[in-house]
C-alpha cells in the first residue's frame, strides 16, 4: 500500500480509546494527511476489548481495511478478530507490564512501550491513552504544539484533567521521538499536503447536520443503538440551533409526536434502529394515509430482535420497503459516506415536505461510527423552501390533485380548517366509506410514486459498465467496494453505488441490461438488494457477496471475493 498506514488501537471500554481516536485523527488531518477512522465495540460499558482503525494516507480513503500496520493494544486479551489481522509486517507498540506474554512467539515486531508506567508518572494510570496519543503523534510527524492545542480544546473545561493528560501526552511524545531518533522505529510517511484542512465528520454528525440544513427543528427518539447517536448530537446542540428534542417513552410516541409536529408545520425526525423502527410501523402507515410528511433515520444493526446492539448490518432494507400496513409510496435513502449522509438527510426533509410521504434514511452502525474527511458540507438558505400553503376558507386537505400532491395546509396558517384523518376520507378529511372515493384517494396517494420515480437519484457509476461485470452496492458498502475495485485495477469491472434504493432511478434498467455479470455485495445473509433489483428489473444477480458477521466487509475481502468470482468459480 506504499506510504499508507492502518493504525489500530485496542482497549477496554472506559480506557479512552475513543479519545485517542478523536485526538489523533484531528492532529493528523491538521498535519495535512488524509485520514479515515472506523471503530468496533462490544455492547458493554466497561471492560472487554474495543478497537478503532485509523487510516493515514496521502490520498483520500474511506473504507475499512483488514491489514494492520501498527497496533497499539492498551490492554491484554485481544479478541480473535484482531489477532487474525496481524501479520509478520505488523508493528506492535505494547506495554509488557499489561500484555505479559501475549505477543511472545508471534512473528510481528513487538516494541515494548511502558504506557502504564509513563502514565502513572505523569498523572495516573487512566491517562495511558494520552501517552499513546503522544507516541503516535511523534511517529507521524505531528508537531507537539498542535497536539497540545488539541488537548486544550478537548479538556478546557476540566483544568486538572487537562494537566494530567498534557503531561502524559508530552511524555508519550518524547518516547515517540526517542523511538524515531534511535531508529528503533522509522515510518516512511505519506506526503502531507499543507493546504489540506478537511472537516472530520462521523456518520452521526453527518446525518444530524444534514437534517438541520434541511430545516429539521424537532427530533424525537427512544434511545437505541446505533440510532441514538443522532439523538445525543441533536440534544447536545439543541440550544445552539434552537430546536426541540425529546426523548420519548417509546418509538410509537416518537413517530406520533413527530407527525403531530409536522402537521403543525414543524420539520421532525425520529431516529432509531431496526427494532424501534418495527414499533413505528403503524405510525408510518398513519403518515401515509394522512399524507403527513415524516423523516425517520434508521441506523441498522444485526437482528433479529436484540441481535448485536453495537454491530453493523444492512438487513433492514426490506423492513423499510414494506414497513406499515396498506399500500403507499415512500422513499428510502442509503448514504455510503459522510457527504452522502449529509446531502441525503437534507434532501429527506425537502422530499418529505414536497411529496407528503415518509422518507427513511437508512444508515448502519459502521457508517455512523466511522469518521470521514470532507472538504466541506454545503449549507445555504437559497436551496431551502417550505412546501405548505396558507389555507383559505374553502380549503380541502385532500383535494384530488392530478399529480397526487394536495396542497398541504398547516394549523395556524390561514383561515381554512385542516382535517387530518387516519380513516379513508373524502377531500375534506372526513371519514368516507364510498367505494369510488376510496379508489380515487388510493390512486391519488399512489400517483405520488411517479413523481418520486422521476425525482429519484441515479446510482454513482465507477468504470464503464457496458459489457463489463457490474458490481452493485448500496449504503455503507459502496466506498469499501470502490476501494476494492481500485485495488484490483481491472477494467472489466464497473461499480454502481446506490445512495437511493427506493424508488430506483430509471437508469437501472439499461444499466443491468448492458452488464455481463451482475454481482451484488451487501451486508445481509439473503441478498435483499439483489432481490429488489430483480423485482424492479427482472435481472437476477449472477453472484452475491454477502456479509452478516456484524462487521463491515474489508477492502481486501471484497477484492478477493470479486477476483474469485471473476476467475469463474463460486457461482451462487
Amino acid at each position, binding site marked *: 500500500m506504499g506510504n499508507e498506514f492502518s493504525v489500530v488501537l485496542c482497549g477496554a471500554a472506559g480506557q479512552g480509546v475513543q479519545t485517542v481516536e478523536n485526538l489523533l485523527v484531528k492532529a493528523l*488531518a491538521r498535519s495535512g494527511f488524509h485520514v479515515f477512522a472506523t471503530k468496533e465495540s462490544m455492547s458493554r460499558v466497561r471492560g472487554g476489548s474495543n478497537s478503532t482503525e485509523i487510516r493515514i494516507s496521502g490520498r483520500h480513503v474511506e473504507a475499512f481495511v483488514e491489514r494492520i500496520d501498527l497496533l497499539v493494544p492498551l490492554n491484554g486479551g485481544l479478541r480473535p478478530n484482531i489477532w487474525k489481522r496481524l501479520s509478520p509486517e505488523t508493528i506492535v507498540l505494547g506495554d509488557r507490564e499489561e500484555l505479559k506474554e501475549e505477543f511472545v512467539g508471534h512473528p510481528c515486531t513487538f516494541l515494548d512501550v511502558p504506557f502504564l508506567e509513563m502514565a502513572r508518572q505523569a498523572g495516573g494510570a487512566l491517562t495511558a491513552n494520552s501517552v499513546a496519543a503522544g507516541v503516535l503523534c511523534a511517529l507521524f510527524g505531528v508537531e507537539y504544539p498542535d497536539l497540545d492545542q488539541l488537548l486544550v480544546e478537548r479538556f478546557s473545561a476540566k483544568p486538572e484533567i487537562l494537566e494530567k493528560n498534557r503531561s502524559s501526552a508530552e511524555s508519550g511524545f518524547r518516547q515517540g521521538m526517542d523511538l524515531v531518533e534511535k531508529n528503533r522505529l522509522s515510518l516512511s510517511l505519506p506526503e502531507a499536503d499543507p493546504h489540506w484542512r478537511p472537516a472530520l465528520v462521523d456518520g452521526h454528525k453527518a446525518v444530524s447536520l444534514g437534517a438541520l440544513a434541511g430545516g429539521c427543528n424537532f427530533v424525537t427518539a427512544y434511545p437505541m443503538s446505533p440510532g441514538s447517536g443522532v439523538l445525543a448530537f441533536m440534544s447536545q446542540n439543541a440550544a445552539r440551533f434552537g430546536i426541540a428534542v425529546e426523548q420519548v417513552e417509546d418509538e*410509537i*410516541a416518537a413517530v406520533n*409526536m413527530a407527525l*403531530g409536529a409536522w*402537521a*403543525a*408545520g414543524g420539520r421532525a425526525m425520529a431516529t432509531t434502529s431496526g427494532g424501534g423502527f418495527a414499533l413505528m410501523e403503524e405510525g408510518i402507515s398513519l403518515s401515509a394515509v394522512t399524507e403527513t410528511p415524516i423523516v425517520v433515520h434508521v441506523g441498522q444493526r444485526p437482528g433479529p430482535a436484540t441481535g448485536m446492539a453495537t454491530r453493523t448490518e444492512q438487513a433492514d432494507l426490506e423492513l423499510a420497503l414494506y414497513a406499515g400496513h396498506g399500500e403507499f409510496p415512500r422513499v428510502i435513502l442509503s448514504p455510503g459516506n459522510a457527504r452522502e449522509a449529509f446531502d441525503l438527510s437534507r434532501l429527506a426533509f425537502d422530499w418529505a415536505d414536497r411529496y407528503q410521504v415518509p422518507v427513511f434514511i437508512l444508515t448502519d452502525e459502521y457508517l455512523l461510527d466511522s469518521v470521514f474527511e470532507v472538504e466541506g458540507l454545503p449549507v445555504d438558505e437559497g436551496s431551502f423552501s417550505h412546501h405548505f400553503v396558507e389555507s383559505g376558507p374553502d380549503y380541502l386537505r385532500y383535494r384530488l390533485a392530478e399529480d397526487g400532491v394536495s396542497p398541504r395546509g398547516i394549523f395556524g*396558517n390561514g383561515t381554512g380548517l*385542516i382535517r387530518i384523518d387516519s380513516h379513508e376520507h373524502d377531500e375534506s378529511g372526513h371519514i368516507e366509506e364510498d367505494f369510488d372515493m376510496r379508489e380515487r384517494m388510493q390512486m391519488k396517494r399512489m400517483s405520488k410514486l411517479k413523481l418520486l420515480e422521476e425525482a429519484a437519484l441515479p446510482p454513482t457509476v465507477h468504470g464503464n459498465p457496458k459489457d463489463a461485470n457490474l458490481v452493485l452496492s448500496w449504503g455503507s458498502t459502496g466506498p469499501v467496494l470502490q476501494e476494492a475495485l481500485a485495488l484490483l485495477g481491472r477494467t472489466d469491472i464497473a461499480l454502481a453505488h446506490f445512495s437511493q434504493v427506493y424508488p430506483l432511478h430509471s437508469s437501472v434498467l439499461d444499466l443491468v441490461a448492458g452488464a455481463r455479470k451482475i454481482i451484488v455485495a451487501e451486508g445481509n445473509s439473503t441478498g435483499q438488494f439483489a432481490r429488489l433489483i430483480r423485482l424492479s428489473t427482472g435481472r437476477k444477480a449472477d453472484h452475491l457477496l454477502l456479509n452478516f458477521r456484524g462487521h463491515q466487509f474489508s477492502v481486501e475481502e471484497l477484492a478477493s471475493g470479486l477476483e474469485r468470482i471473476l476467475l469463474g468459480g463460486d457461482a451462487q
Partner: protein
Amino acid sequence: MNPREYDVENVDMSWCPGCGNFQILSTLKEVLSGLGLSPQEVVLISGIGQAAKTPHFMKGHIIQGLHGRALPVATGVKAANPGMTVLAIGGDGDMYGEGGNHLLHAIRRNPDLANLVHNNMVYGLTKGQASPTSPVGMKTPVQVEGVFSEPLNPLALAISQGASFVARTFSAATDLSREIIKAAIIHKGYALVDIFQPCVSFNKVNTYKWFKENTFVLQDGQVDLHDRRKAMELAMTGPPYPLGILYQDRPGRVTFEEQLPAYREKKDPLWKRKPPVGLISAFIEGLR
C-alpha cells in the same frame, strides 16, 4: 361567540341515540365558543373509538390518528405551535388501554393541553368488550365469565404521577362539565378530565341511573385544590365517586413546550422558521 359556529353541516352522526357523547360534544362546543376561541385556533386530536370520532362532528382543525396515540400527536402539535389550543380526546380504551404508556408520560411531560376521556367503561366501537375501567364481574361477549382484572383508577394514577390538573365529571351533568372542561382548557399544563358516560348499547351495568346513584358533586370547601395527598384520598373514594376538580397545580409550573430550547430565543411557531444556516456552517467549520 355562538356555539353554533362549531356546528358541522350535513354530518352523518354515527353515535347511538342516547349516547353520552352527544352531551359532551355540545358541552365542548359551548365551552370553546364561551372562551372566545374560533375553530381556527383549536386543534382537536383523537385516536380511535366512538369518543375519538368527536372531532369529526364539530368545527376545528383535527387529527384523528391511531388508536391510543392521541397524546404524543397532541404533544407534537402543541410543541410545534404553542399558540394553538390543543385538546386530546378519546375513550377509556383509547387513552387508558392502548395509550396507557403515553398517558403516564404525557402527565410527566406536562404539555399544555386538555385531555378529555369519555369513560363509559366498555368498548363501543368494537361492540361491547371490557375496557380497562370495566367493573370486575361485568360479562361481555369476550369476558364471558365476567371481568377478572381490577379496573384502572385514572384519577389516582394521574394524581400519583404528578398530573397538573385532574378532574372528573359526568356527561349528563352538563353544567358541571362545562365548568370543568373550561377550567381544564384554561389551565396551563396537562389537564386530565375523566368523563363518566353511559354506553346505552353495550354497558348494561353503568347506566345513567347507575352513574346518578353512584356519584356526588364535590362542594366548595370540600377540596383543597393544591393538596395532592388529599386529592389522592378523593381519587380513592367511591362508590359513590366524587365529581369535580380534585387537584390543580398552583400557577407557575413550566410546561413541556415552554422549556424547549426551540423557544428560548424565538417565540414564533416552527413553521415560520428557516434552518439556521450561519450556525450550521460555523459548526462545520469547527470540525476542521
